[in-house]
C-alpha cells in the first residue's frame, strides 16, 4: 500500500479512509496522503463490491440481464433498466408503444428526484447535519410508495422490459404522482431553510473542490458534476430518447465549478424533473404498454450502444452480439467511475472536511463505480 502512493515523502501522514467509513457511502477505499491536515493526494481503491456484473450478464438472456443492472446504481435503478431496454430495442429496431415511452420517462424522472433527495440528505449528513437526511426521506418515501404500487418493488424495480414496461400503470398512479408533486412543492422551501441558506453550509461548500470546465471534460465527468463546471452534457438534450424530445425543460448549468455549484445543480434538477412529470402525467396516451416480442430474444450480430442520463450522469450500455440469445460481451460506462477520478484533482490542498464535502457533491454510489 505504501509503495503505491508514490508522492509520499518523509513526514507525510497516510490515512486509509474506508472501506468502512461513514462518509464513503459504501465500500470505497481512499488512501489519503496528508501533510499535517492538508491533503496532498487522494487515491481511490476499488474492488470491495465487485460482483462482475458484466461477466455475469454474458450468461443471461436479453430479458434477464436487465434486472442485474438495478444492482449497479441502485438509486437510479429505473434509468439503468431503461438504458438496457433501449439498447436491446435499438438492436431489434423495435418500435415501443407511445404509452410505454411516456411511462418510462415519468418513472425515470421520479427516480431522478428520489435519487437527488437521498443525495441531499446524505450530503448534509456528510457535513455533520443529521436532520436533513430524515426530512429528505419523507419525500423519497412517497416516490417509493408510488413505485411499489406500480412496479412491485421499492428499489430494484425491474420494470422496464425490452419493448415497453412489464405491467401497466396502477389505476391510482396519476393521482398519487399529483399528490406527490403537491407535497414536494409545499415542502421544498424547507430544504433551503435547513441547508442551502445555512451560513455554515455555504461556507463549507463555496470555493471548495473547484473543477474547471476543461478538467471536467478531460476527466470524463458527466451529469451534475460536469454541469456544475458549465459543461452541457445532458444526454436528454444531446441525444433525446423516448419522449424527452417532446417535453420542455432546461438543462441547468452553473459555471462556478465548486461544490456549491454542483449542489445547486441537483437542487434545480429536481425542479426540472417535476416540470417534466407535470407535462406528461396528464397526457399519457392509451394503448399497449408493451410491444410484442418473441419469447426468446435474439439480437442480430453486431455492436450496439445506447446512452442515457442517470441521476449521476451518462450511463452507456454497449452490447456485442454474436447473434445468440445471450450477449457476447456487455460493457457499462458508469458515470460514477469518471466522476470519482476527478476527486483527487478537486481536493488537493484542501482539508479532510473538504474532501468529505467534495465527495458528497460527486454523489457516488459505489456499486455503480465498482460493478
Amino acid at each position, binding site marked *: 500500500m505504501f509503495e503505491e502512493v508514490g508522492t509520499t515523502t518523509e513526514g507525510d501522514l497516510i490515512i486509509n479512509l474506508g472501506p468502512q467509513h461513514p462518509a464513503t457511502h459504501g465500500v470505497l477505499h481512499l488512501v489519503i496522503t496528508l501533510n499535517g491536515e492538508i491533503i496532498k493526494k487522494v487515491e481511490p481503491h476499488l474492488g470491495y463490491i465487485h460482483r462482475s456484473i458484466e461477466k455475469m450478464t454474458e450468461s443471461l438472456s436479453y430479458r*434477464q440481464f436487465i434486472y442485474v443492472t438495478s444492482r449497479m446504481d441502485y438509486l437510479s435503478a429505473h434509468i439503468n433498466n431503461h438504458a438496457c431496454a433501449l439498447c436491446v430495442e435499438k438492436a431489434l429496431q423495435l418500435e415501443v408503444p407511445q404509452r410505454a415511452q411516456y411511462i418510462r420517462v415519468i418513472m425515470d424522472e421520479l427516480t431522478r428526484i428520489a435519487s437527488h433527495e437521498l443525495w441531499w440528505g446524505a450530503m448534509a449528513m456528510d457535513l455533520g447535519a443529521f436532520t436533513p437526511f430524515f426530512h429528505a426521506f419523507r419525500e423519497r418515501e412517497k416516490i417509493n410508495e408510488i413505485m411499489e404500487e406500480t412496479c*412491485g418493488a421499492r428499489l430494484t424495480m*425491474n420494470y422496464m422490459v425490452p419493448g415497453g414496461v*412489464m405491467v401497466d400503470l396502477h389505476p391510482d398512479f396519476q393521482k398519487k404522482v399529483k399528490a406527490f408533486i403537491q407535497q414536494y412543492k409545499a415542502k421544498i422551501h424547507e430544504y433551503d*431553510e*435547513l441547508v442551502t441558506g*445555512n451560513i*455554515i453550509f*455555504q461556507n463549507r461548500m463555496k470555493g471548495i473542490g473547484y473543477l474547471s470546465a476543461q478538467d471536467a471534460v478531460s476527466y470524463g465527468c458527466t451529469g451534475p458534476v460536469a454541469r456544475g463546471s458549465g459543461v452541457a452534457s445532458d444526454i436528454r438534450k444531446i441525444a433525446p430518447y423516448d419522449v424527452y424530445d417532446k417535453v420542455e425543460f432546461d438543462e441547468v448549468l452553473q459555471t462556478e465549478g465548486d461544490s456549491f455549484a454542483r449542489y445547486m445543480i441537483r437542487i434545480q434538477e429536481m425542479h426540472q424533473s417535476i416540470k417534466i412529470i407535470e407535462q406528461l402525467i396528464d397526457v399519457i396516451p392509451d394503448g399497449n404498454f408493451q410491444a410484442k416480442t418473441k*419469447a426468446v430474444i435474439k439480437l442480430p450480430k453486431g455492436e450496439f450502444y445506447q446512452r442515457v442520463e442517470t441521476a449521476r450522469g451518462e450511463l452507456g450500455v454497449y452490447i456485442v452480439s454474436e447473434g445468440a440469445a445471450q450477449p457476447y460481451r456487455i460493457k457499462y460506462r458508469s458515470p460514477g467511475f469518471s466522476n470519482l477520478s476527478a476527486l483527487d484533482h478537486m481536493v488537493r490542498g484542501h482539508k479532510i472536511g473538504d474532501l468529505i464535502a467534495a465527495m458528497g457533491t460527486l454523489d457516488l454510489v459505489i456499486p455503480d463505480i465498482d460493478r
Partner: protein
Amino acid sequence: MFLKEYFLDIYKATKSLLTGMKLTGYYFTHHKEILTEEYPENRKSLQLAERFRGEVIMPHDANNEHTCTGCSSCEIACPNGSIKIISKFDITPEGKKKKAIDQHIYHLELCTMCGLCVEACPTDAIKMANTFEHSVFNRNHLIKRLNKPGSKIKEGIEE
C-alpha cells in the same frame, strides 16, 4: 465600510442559523408530523401494495386445482435458478402419456423478486404475493414446494 460589512455578516449568519432552528423547532413542537410506523404493532392495519413482489406463490382453487402445466417457462425465465420444475407423466383416460407437474420447487433464498417468471408463465399459474415476513431459523424452510400435495391441474388448461 469594513465595520458595516462585519456586522452585516454577523446579522446574515445569525438570520440563516435562526431560520434553520425555526424549522427544527417547528417539527419539535408538531408531533403529528412524525412519520415512523411502529411495525409489529401495526401489523393488522398494515396495507402493502397489491403488486408488491414478496415471494412466488401458486394459487390453488377450492378443489385444490392449479393451472400449472409444468412447461418450465418459469424455470427458463429465472435468472438465478431459483425455480426447479420436476415433471411426471400422467396417463390420460385415453391411455396416452401426458407431461404434468410433479413438484414445483421454489428457492426463496435465491430469489431476487424480479418477477420474470410470472411474466413468462403462459397459463398464469404463478404470481407474486405481497407477503414479506420470510425470516426462518432454518434455511431449508426457504425451499418451498409451490403445488400443494395432491393437487392437480385444472380442466381445460393446455400448453
